[in-house]
């Protein structure tokens, strides 16, 4: 019911696969996906282990609503210890792979050990096999997807795979499924590569059942109606995608620009959703061809884009002339505003390469941005960059960087280490816009104060998807707060963190929460699984997950010192826009946040808190 009740455990060292029952007590405490898989990882893996060593494990996990008709019910997550951060990593993806895994009859796959040679895991319902991957090792995500479907003569297979980046240990390499959806952040692709696993391919023909079919249809239909009638999920996201934010965030003075030196980008409009939907002057076609839904999603925010065939990036490369996954807001920002590049076609090409080679465009763009600043300061020269003139605003430089990083060649190897290691190597660790080693996403902590605390306390390093207070501070969802003040933000961040942890554990997409509250979600979960799921129970589960993740990081050696933002955001005030004169007030918010969380002044969960939550 909801869950399949089965885990596939794969010992890569011995080459064995076995089925085991899901721990149903844990399922009631941690729901599924992010929460439940983190519980397994925390119980089975030494938090101090080398993330790229055989002692680390990697878990593909679905939620109880994955593979149902609940809107967006197709998500899966990858949970492991991340090599970019050395912290807990949990990367969430859509597409169709997660639902297919559920249809094959599995709640989770736990990969442990290390295969002696490159393999891929092929699953057809109950049957799971480790097969030779020597023909696809060293090839792209796109080639691997095509090769596996042809090999097994089944176009209905769904594939999650790494590109060359993951094989070569790029510390922000992704696991990409369905060609252009990704478990993108924290370097989960490098962990898969370190285990000599190229891909997981799945074909499922079993059904997913729910506890109470009638109640489930009623709850999910009501939920879909709420999404359809909401301005953001019913109109803004399907029409413009997440890129609907580009102009709005820029006007709010919260757009990190040129490695966060500025908070507004003069070229924002050129790379915005509106630009994507306007016919190009060159060929009269639009960059945006259509929108695409992930499995079961009634929002359909995905972008399908086509590059101008005459653009310098693809002029002699017909393999990039077809439509594929286009720019989301985070990618457009990281590759564009953050590097000062306003060439929409170039950004789309770089995004294609990130998908084809398996890179996280946020961390990649932010690392190039930091490298550009080092180059401008003369700390990096063309002698180190393979001759690339690494100047802010250079589309040519950005394009060369992505080609080298994807293949892990030359200067690309250095870029593949991420901005924290790069900036440390060249003597300016302060120029790395990271927390816990992971690069910021697309919101400036001076212009949206809640996001500073969000980045500082995110358990997987800087991330917007752990508590998206932008909803409240910019869009007034569920209620409007002032983005320029710190008042009330610790409680706001905590509420968002707990609710999001629960949504991430259900099999649903967090974008539903532009329209849904837990009051909309709890009835859908409750109709699917036993356990009397109320909004209150979901929040409690979310808080339990948050504290469990925090304890994993604590055991891994993280302290309150790791909850700090880079000095630039604390000392260099915003120079333009509504936040002019402001720095981040994260230092004022942290003590109150720790207290609200029931943690010590040093940011460690107290015994009372842990026993209250039964962590």
């Amino acid at each position: 019911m909801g869950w399949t009740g089965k885990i596939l455990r794969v010992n890569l060292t011995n080459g064995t696969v076995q089925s085991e029952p899901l721990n149903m007590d844990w399922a009631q405490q941690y729901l599924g996906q992010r929460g439940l898989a983190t519980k397994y990882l925390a119980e089975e893996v030494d938090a101090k282990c080398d993330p790229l060593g055989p002692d680390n494990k990697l878990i593909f996990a679905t939620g109880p609503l994955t593979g149902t008709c609940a809107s967006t019910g197709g998500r899966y997550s990858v949970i492991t210890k991340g090599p970019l951060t050395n912290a807990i990593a949990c990367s969430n993806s859509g597409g169709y792979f997660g639902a297919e895994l559920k249809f094959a009859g599995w709640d989770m796959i736990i990969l442990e050990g290390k295969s002696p040679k490159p393999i891929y895991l092929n699953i057809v319902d109950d049957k799971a096999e480790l097969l030779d991957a020597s023909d696809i090792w060293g090839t792209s995500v796109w080639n691997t997807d095509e090769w596996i479907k042809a090999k097994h003569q089944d176009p209905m297979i769904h594939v999650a795979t790494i590109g060359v980046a993951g094989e070569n240990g790029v510390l922000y390499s992704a696991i990409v499924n369905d060609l252009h959806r990704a478990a993108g952040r924290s370097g989960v692709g490098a962990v898969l590569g370190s285990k000599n696993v190229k891909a997981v391919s799945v074909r499922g023909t079993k059904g997913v059942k729910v506890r109470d079919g009638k109640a489930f249809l009623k709850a999910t239909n009501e939920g879909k109606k709420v999404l359809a009638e909401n301005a953001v999920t019913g109109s803004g996201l399907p029409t413009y995608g997440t890129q609907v934010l580009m102009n709005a965030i820029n006007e709010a003075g919260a757009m990190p620009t040129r490695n966060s030196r500025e908070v507004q980008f003069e070229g924002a409009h050129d790379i915005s959703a509106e630009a994507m939907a306007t016919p190009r002057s060159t060929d009269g076609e639009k960059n945006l061809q259509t929108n695409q839904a992930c499995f079961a999603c009634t929002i359909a925010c995905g972008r399908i884009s086509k590059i101008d065939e005459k653009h310098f990036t693809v002029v002699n490369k017909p393999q990039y002339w077809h439509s594929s996954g286009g720019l989301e807001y985070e990618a457009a920002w990281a590759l564009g505003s953050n590097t000062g590049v306003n060439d929409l076609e170039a950004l789309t090409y770089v995004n294609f390469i990130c998908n084809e080679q398996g890179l996280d465009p946020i961390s990649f763009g932010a690392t190039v941005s930091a490298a550009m600043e080092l180059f401008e300061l003369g700390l990096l020269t063309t002698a180190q960059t393979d001759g690339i003139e690494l100047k802010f605003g250079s589309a040519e430089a950005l394009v060369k960087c992505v080609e080298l990083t994807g293949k892990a060649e030359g200067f690309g190897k250095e870029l593949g280490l991420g901005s924290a290691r790069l900036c440390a190597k060249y003597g300016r660790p302060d120029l790395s816009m990271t927390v816990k080693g992971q690069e910021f996403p697309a919101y400036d902590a001076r212009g949206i104060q809640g996001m500073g605390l969000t980045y500082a306390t995110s358990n997987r390093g800087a991330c917007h998807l752990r508590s998206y207070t932008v909803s409240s501070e910019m869009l007034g969802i569920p209620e409007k707060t002032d983005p320029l003040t710190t008042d009330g933000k610790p409680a706001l961040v905590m509420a968002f963190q707990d609710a999001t942890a629960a949504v991430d554990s259900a099999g649903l997409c967090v974008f539903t929460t532009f329209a849904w509250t837990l009051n909309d979600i709890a009835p859908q979960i409750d109709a699917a699984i036993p356990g009397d799921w109320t909004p209150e129970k979901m929040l409690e589960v979310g808080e339990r997950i948050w504290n469990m993740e925090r304890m994993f990081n604590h055991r891994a050696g993280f302290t309150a010192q790791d909850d700090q933002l880079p000095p630039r955001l604390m000392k260099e005030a915003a120079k333009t826009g509504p936040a002019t004169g402001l720095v981040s007030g994260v230092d004022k918010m942290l003590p109150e946040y720790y207290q609200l969380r029931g943690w010590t002044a040093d940011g460690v969960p107290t015994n009372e808190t842990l026993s209250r939550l039964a962590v």
Partner: protein
Amino acid sequence: MLKALVIDAGKCTGCKQCEMACSLENEGEFNVAKSRIRVFDFHTEARFVPYTCTQCSEAWCQQACPVNAITTDSMGVKVVHDNLCVGCKVCTIACPFGTVNYNASTGKVIKCDLCGGQPACSDACPTGAISYQDAEQGGFDKMKVWASQSANAATSEGPNTPKAAQASGSGH
């Protein structure tokens, strides 16, 4: 009135809600592998296309069945009778569109039967890509679009008056 599913692929986002509604209606569970309607992903051409049985008037599946397990109901729907079907799969070969398929877990074939007159796929489609309409008017929306384009391309302007020959009633 005969009704038919009308598919506007331009509105499809590839969400597969139709496949889930179909499998729930027919199998009692969410299982897209057993859906009678399928969405095909041509995202490299920026297209997603739902496809299912069109209920042919002269249905080759029905003609080919050696045990008469496929009959036509009062609404023109071709229905498979599980108690008669022997799972020989000849109908799956005969169908030119591939919309009759074998279900290995039952040993019978499955195809769209329009859910007895209220197709679950069309109810579940969030964008209106699948609608259930009068079979004789399925093309009217497309006709209207083309008609409006030909109006834009018209060379003469009104006011329009009857041609003299017609107005005088030529011939008789």
